[in-house]
């Protein structure tokens, strides 16, 4: 497991939030406007750390779009994780060499509060500046910290409300399924933002089905599309267990989603399988998903893919493939969020195999999803394991 530095963790959280890099959020502009008026300062800003820069998703006054991190007052909230202030920056060794302090007129007064995500990582600051020397009294400091708390809430709100919406539409299976000597186990660790992984599994008599899909594109449009994808895939699943060709199944879903996919300019990757637990034949189709492995009991590893593109890209015939599972064989399918958790994504098959092979299905899934708690995932992380038990 990799140890994640504070900077890396911060960067991941900032990426997850998906804030606009240009322009600003009106609600943050408003909070800054209130601060400017309340404290009679020329400028106030919400700042967010992004690699070696600090960008400004909300502010009031004469502010740049972004500033190199080492030129900011705000970098100091990272060291203290608490409020930082100076009444006269021109004689404060922490700040006196900053370009804004050497400028004319110089920034003399600064008060900044750290903005933290729920995991405790500082991602930015809420601050006020003045060209005059200033001293805030206790009441002003208290008022300022209230505004900072508000700014923090708003900064995180969009990501969280998106997540809540996705949770409402997701009716994911919650326990392993066992039929004869076959089983399916699957789970999803949701990212802070709207990741939009969809997975489902179930059975009809002795035939089981499992599928994983990912909307390529995030935000509200993708979240809304996600529930249509869910409907299209689940709606026709009975035909699959009754024997419908999986290539045709994907084509049918694509036709059904065509208008919405066109309108949103999004694509959907899908891996869908169906297995007859009496004949032990497993059928599958892949629309640009590409992340399924067959781990043979004999120690061999095969990638189960096709050459079909994601849904919505190019309408064309899609192909079903077949494979026979022998006792002890396992099929593992992961979502692309997993690529972001392994040391070297190019060698993901080796990484997934080394995590799955020595463990039971449930343990393996725990381990893979455990990586996601260590590193905040940029995307949902989903794992499905189908096994024909020995």
């Amino acid at each position: 497991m990799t140890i994640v530095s504070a900077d890396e963790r911060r960067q991941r959280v900032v990426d997850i939030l998906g804030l606009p890099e240009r322009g600003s959020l009106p609600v943050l502009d408003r909070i800054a406007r209130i601060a400017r008026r309340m404290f009679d300062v020329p400028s106030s800003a919400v700042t967010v750390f992004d690699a070696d820069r600090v960008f400004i998703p909300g502010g009031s006054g004469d502010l740049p779009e972004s500033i190199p991190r080492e030129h900011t007052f705000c970098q100091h909230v990272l060291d203290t994780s608490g409020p930082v202030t100076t009444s006269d920056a021109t004689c404060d060794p922490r700040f006196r060499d900053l370009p804004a302090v050497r400028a004319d007129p110089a920034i003399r007064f600064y008060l900044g509060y750290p903005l933290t995500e729920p995991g405790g990582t500082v991602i930015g600051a809420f601050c006020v500046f003045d060209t005059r020397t200033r001293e805030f009294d206790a009441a002003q400091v208290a008022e300022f910290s209230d505004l900072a708390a508000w700014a923090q809430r708003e900064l995180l709100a969009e990501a969280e409300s998106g997540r809540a919406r996705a949770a409402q539409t997701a009716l994911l299976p919650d326990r392993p399924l066992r039929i004869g000597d076959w089983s399916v186990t699957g789970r999803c660790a949701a990212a802070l933002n709207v990741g939009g992984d969809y997975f489902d599994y179930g059975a009809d008599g002795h035939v089981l089905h499992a599928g994983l899909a990912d909307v390529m594109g995030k935000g509200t449009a993708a979240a809304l599309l996600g529930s249509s994808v869910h409907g299209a895939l689940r709606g026709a699943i009975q035909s699959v267990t009754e024997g419908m060709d999986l290539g045709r199944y994907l084509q049918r879903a694509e036709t059904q989603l065509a208008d919405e996919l066109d309108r949103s300019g999004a694509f959907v990757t899908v891996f869908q399988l169906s297995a007859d637990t009496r004949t032990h034949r497993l059928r599958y189709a892949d629309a640009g998903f590409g992340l399924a492995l067959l781990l043979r009991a004999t120690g061999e590893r095969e990638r189960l893919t096709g050459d079909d593109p994601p849904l919505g890209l190019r309408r064309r015939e899609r192909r079903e493939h077949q494979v026979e599972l022998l006792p002890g064989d396992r099929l593992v399918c992961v979502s692309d969020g997993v690529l972001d958790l392994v040391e070297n994504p190019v060698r993901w098959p080796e990484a997934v195999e080394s995590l799955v092979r020595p463990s039971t299905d449930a343990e393996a899934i725990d381990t893979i999803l455990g990586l996601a708690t260590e590193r905040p995932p940029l995307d949902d992380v989903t794992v499905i394991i189908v096994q024909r038990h020995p």
Partner: protein
Amino acid sequence: MFEIGVDRVEGATVLQPRGRLTMASAGAFRDAVTTALHAGDQLVVIDLAGLAFIDSSGLGALAGAQRIAHAGDVPLRVCGASDQVRLAMELTNLDDLLQPFVTVDAALDAR
């Protein structure tokens, strides 16, 4: 962190996205490609060498760009993908659609 450089070489526009092409930057990327495709050049090349990371939204934006290019009859070529970017294209079978070139020169010369 994301930005796009624009270069003009022998009647072609070369776009150089730098940083992380993700859901946060996919919109800006799409705008830049659309502008380039409508600029009247014979060819648009997207040099991916400066991309540190691409996620599925970024891939979606690349595939969308290819689709706009097809519709407008302007050839669009991509090149310079790093290991991570190439892996993402291969897994989704988008390499088949995007047909990536190794270098900018190769993409320009293929005319």
